[in-house]
């Protein structure tokens, strides 16, 4: 069964079909939430909220990219979470460690370096504005095209381009400031 059939069945009220769609897209939605919120618990809450909202509103889905639609709902859930976290901050975004799953092919040293780098990226992302962080995450981490990012974020491709450019530059500045670039690329601003 492809996504379109599953969507149609979901629109007829078939929860199993919808949950199959959830199973297919949950990793993508969760990754966006995790990169946006930097906290696995908050990301889980936002993702659950997003899928619950998607199920309630699945009848309103009028075709197009289901992936973009789900990401759009997740993005909104993340914005809500960020507003809530801003109101009652629980854990600062920068100080949230994440242990990536170890690959069987890498040595413990490589794993440590990768984990370290992953944490730095997360901290760097936390220095960006919400919209820049979302654009960079969707484009560079999740591999969406500019058009798809625009659809998810509800803005023009020009705006997406500018947000991605500024986001990358900020991230680059953060890495330069933390002296995290390889020696050949040390870039002092």
């Amino acid at each position, binding site marked *: 069964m492809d996504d379109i059939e599953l969507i149609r069945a979901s629109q007829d009220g078939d929860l199993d079909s919808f949950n199959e769609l959830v199973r297919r897209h949950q990793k993508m939605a969760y990754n966006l939430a995790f990169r946006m919120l930097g906290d696995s618990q908050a990301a889980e809450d936002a993702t659950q909220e997003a899928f619950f909202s998607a199920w309630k509103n699945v009848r309103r889905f009028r075709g197009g990219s289901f992936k973009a639609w789900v990401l759009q709902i997740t993005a909104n859930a993340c914005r809500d979470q960020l507003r809530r976290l801003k109101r009652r901050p629980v854990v600062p975004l920068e100080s949230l460690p994440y242990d990536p799953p170890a690959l069987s092919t890498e040595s413990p040293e490589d794993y440590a370096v990768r984990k370290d780098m992953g944490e730095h990226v997360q901290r760097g992302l936390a220095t960006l504005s919400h919209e820049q962080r979302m654009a960079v995450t969707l484009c560079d981490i999740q591999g969406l095209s500019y058009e798809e990012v625009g659809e998810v974020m509800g803005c023009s491709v020009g705006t997406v381009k500018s947000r991605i450019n500024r986001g990358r530059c900020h991230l*680059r500045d953060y890495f330069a400031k933390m002296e995290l670039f390889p020696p050949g690329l040390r870039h002092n601003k």
Partner: protein
Amino acid sequence: MWRAFRRSEKDECSKARELLSGYLDRRLNSEEATRVEGHLKTCPGCREELESLRAIVALLHRLPEVAPSRSFAVAPVRPLPGRRALPALRFATAGVVLLLVLAFAADQTNQFQRSDPSTLSYGPAAMSYQRSEEEEAYWLVEGVKNSTDSPSGTPTPVNLVVPDQTDNVYVAVSSLSTSGIVWGVMEAGAGDVPQLVLTEGEEETGSRENTEEFAVLSDSGDTQGKFAANGAAVPSGLDSIIEGQEGSFLNILSSDNEVLYSFNLSDSRREVRAARENAWLRPLEYGLLGMAVLLGAATGALWLRRRRARAAEAGAGKN
């Protein structure tokens, strides 16, 4: 000249840097791409900038996907129990409680009490009757009021009513045809002799201002304890006098010695009027109380069930 050249070079760099991200993603049109490439050939700073951005993008591309620790499948939503019943129950409970409060308040303020004529009791039996606080006992003496304008006129029946109190009570002389009403105060006189002071007041307003005052002195030890006016009446010094006559008569005279009121004390009788509650009041109160308790319990139980169902649903949604 050199400064102008530097400024234009700086402008070129900032313009190129705006485009570097798009250049990396191959999202520039051919004209922009040519301009950027031309600039990069001559500007080592922007080349370094491009490389650092490329490194950042590569780093971001290499980031592993984060795996969620649970599934986000949506749990089937069962309609919460009592979705319709709860508001109705709440409304009903509130209504019954309100009725109960009203009934109780009305009961407390004796709104539902009535004086049942059938409970009247007369004479000696009533005298020894121990009345409760809600009941009312009084002496009733029948008499007449003579018309002062025409002595030959027909006397009007009048009642002297003395509530069964020991002192400082008001007595009323009711008359069907007179416009005035006579008020009196029974006071404990010297040597435990009851003293009845009557004043005539306005029937409409009950005002006792500017009224003619009568005084009655009676010695005790006669008929039924309260009235003994035989020969004991003494003018009080006011214009009006009371005159005792043969037999147990209480006569109230005008200053011209005309008999205004005449009461035959030997006919006096005691009445007990029981202020009774309506028979339906207690069942109503208890019924309402029972209903309020039942409805309250049902509402509470339903509310708890809903809360549990909601908590279970939230739990299922998370796992």
